[in-house]
């Protein structure tokens, strides 16, 4: 697991405390945070300027429920994998708007670390063999791509 190359991660989250702590957790797990956006406009800028492997995207941002738009923009522009971090997972459409999965808030430290491990394996050495993180829902398209039920 640890011999896989670390991920470049973009955080799209309007709550500063959550974003700060998330950044620490990501760094502790050995990955690099390439940007933190609080609005959809900022997020688009970061998407254009960085080449993140993974983007954690909240659905409610400072300019409204624009997280789904951000996911659509990322899907159109970059190969970056999107994971929604949201307290309102019912807002996520059935096709997950092209995202890889949803991590439901409130997530636990272990859940998030597990999510990072799972996605890292999915990106660096698919299919992921780590157990499915607690609180994580995998998109059907990725499940079939990775041969996971």
């Amino acid at each position, binding site marked *: 697991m640890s011999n896989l190359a670390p991920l470049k991660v973009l955080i799209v989250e309007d709550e500063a405390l959550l974003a700060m702590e998330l950044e*620490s*957790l990501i760094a502790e797990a050995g990955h690099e945070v390439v940007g933190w956006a609080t609005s959809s406009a900022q997020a688009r800028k970061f998407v254009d300027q960085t080449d993140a492997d993974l983007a954690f995207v909240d659905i409610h941002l400072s300019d409204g429920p624009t997280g789904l738009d951000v996911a659509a923009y990322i899907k159109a522009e970059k190969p970056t994998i999107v994971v929604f971090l949201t*307290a309102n997972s019912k807002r996520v459409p059935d096709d997950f708007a092209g995202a890889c999965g949803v991590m439901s808030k*409130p997530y636990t430290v272990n859940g998030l670390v*597990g999510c990072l491990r799972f996605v890292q394996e999915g990106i660096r050495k698919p299919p992921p063999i780590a157990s499915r993180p*607690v609180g994580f829902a995998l998109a059907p398209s990725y499940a079939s791509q990775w041969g996971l039920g």
Partner: protein
Amino acid sequence: MNDKPTKSSAHDWHMTDDLHAPQGKADPFAAAMRATRMAMIITDPKKPDNPIIFANDAFLRLTGYERSEVVGSNCRFLQGKDTDPDAVAALRKAVEKRKNINIDILNYRKDGKPFWNALYLSPVSDEQGNLQYFFGSQLDVTNRKSSELHAEAERERFERAVKERTRELEDALEARTMLLHEVDHRVKNNLQMISSLILMQSRNIQDEGVKNSLRSMLERVEALSTVHRRLYQTDDVTHFDVGDFVRDLVRDLVAASGRDDIEAAFQLGEVEIPAQQAAPVALIVNELVTNAIKHAFVDGRPGTVGVKVAKPDGHYRFEVNDNGAGMPPDIRSGSFGTTLVRALARQLEAKVSWESNGDGTKVVVTMPVEKGSPKEKAERL
């Protein structure tokens, strides 16, 4: 006889000549027809436009016309602006097909006053089967009809009112559900915020004792987080699935311990508890499982933490067991975790029994099924 209505009433009774019946005022059938209180007419379909050739006094009283005004005319003069065209069409069709018809039709008197006419029209043929006449009888059913219409209007009004009320209730329910989800959303965000605060603080602390306390605090908050993540996920917002919660919680705790040599074993029946009991139950299970992971497998001793959830006769039963070294009594009675378990058990009216020896520890929590919950009431019915 000429076809036009005549003005002369002196010839009135001669019009009955067209009946080709035994003639004269003494004919009992003709006399009966003239005298009956039921309005009656006879028309002649062999003549152009099927005119009335006989109308009795009752018919004249009903419609307000003179005999001379009606005889020789087609009876459509009774129709008016609100007469149902479908009813007229049905009448025309019956005449064309030479069939009986029984129909309520809105007609108009000479003075313009409408009345509901229960019309019966029937063809009369001779012995050879040739159509000779149509016989019509008319009954004023305005009273019956208006009460029918009134009942119909009342029924429609009632249905509208029910529909409106139903919509109001649905709107209110939707508003309530939206509000619940909004509050739920905030609770979840705030729990995430509390976890983040504890974590951030603990990153800046060197003292291992304080760090451990903060870690225990975080675990408790995360147990509540796990409850809230699972709450309101189904349509039934009043109940909480203990099994799903236990699986998430214990998987998280074992993984977070970093101990590959500790396994989790589950025996989870389908047990739902009222939503308001979810948090205290979750905190108790969290304390018991955390205790097992921390104290049962010291000095690299591997093992299994087992959790059983069941609902035997009128009780919920939660069991946390391990095959570790057994727990010293001082850990059981002195710690904050134990105090927490005792207090929450009291709140839930639950009994907690501890068994510990060299082969491990088993804690069983039994809690009465709340009698007042709607689901329990439904089950008892």
